[in-house]
């Protein structure tokens, strides 16, 4: 991996592998501290971590918009179910 280096006892590739766990708050105490120390001293990981977090936040915002079933689809589903016998 380009730009791979070790900072605060953790390599960039190891930070990359832990970004989701970090974001989801599921990283154990010591690893969390290591990731934070690495990111504080590594420009590449700080920038990429920010882009990754912004992507996930943007996805959650977009997906949380209501997405109702279109009326014509509902009508066709109702007709299909009416024709069904058990």
């Amino acid at each position, binding site marked *: *991996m*380009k*730009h791979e280096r070790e900072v605060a006892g953790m390599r*960039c*590739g190891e930070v*990359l*592998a832990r*970004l*989701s*766990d970090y974001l989801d708050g*599921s990283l154990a105490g010591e690893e969390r501290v290591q990731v934070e120390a690495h990111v504080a001293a590594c420009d*590449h*990981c700080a*920038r*990429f971590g*920010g*882009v*990754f*977090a*912004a*992507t*996930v936040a*943007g*996805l*959650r*915002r*977009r*997906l*949380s918009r*209501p*997405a*109702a*079933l279109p009326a014509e*689809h*509902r009508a*066709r*589903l*109702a007709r*299909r*179910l*009416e024709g*069904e016998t*058990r």
Partner: protein
Amino acid sequence: MTSSDRELLEKSARGDRGAFGEFVARHEATLWRFARALAHDEAEAEDVLQQTFVAAWRAAGELERDDGRAWLLAIARRESARLARRRGARHERERSLEELGEHAGFGDARATPEELGVRLEEEGLLEQALARLAPHEREILVLRELEGLSGAAAAELLGLSLSAEKARLHRARLALTAELRTLTHGATP
């Protein structure tokens, strides 16, 4: 008082179409989002939706736990897989985490969170990026980020261990980051 999924399906199993209609109305939006995430196109998504509710109507007496949503999502996965096999869909080679990271822009000074935040407000950009993902990547993103399933619930539905489920979610998020980068900067893997 609102009936539970189990109560509605018990009535449905006795032929009560009104109860089944209530069950459909309760879950149709979730199923539609999920079907669209799994399907190749909108026509296939509608097929998945219809086949799922038809299968649910026929098997209405078979709900084991009082969780109609999880039951329907599992049926939808089977229906979608059947349609994908019929279409002859093939699995792509899985990229290493390092490859995905490079593709997603690790080490690329052009990509900044501020710039991405602005671009993400553009109508349709995220949808385009999502459409470029593999179905199993869209599926995990919809289950976890939209439907709010816990890691354990998603793992059970997908037939994965918890660690495999976490790995799939992480790879899907990286793949989405990579597709957004391709769309905004024209980068190639």
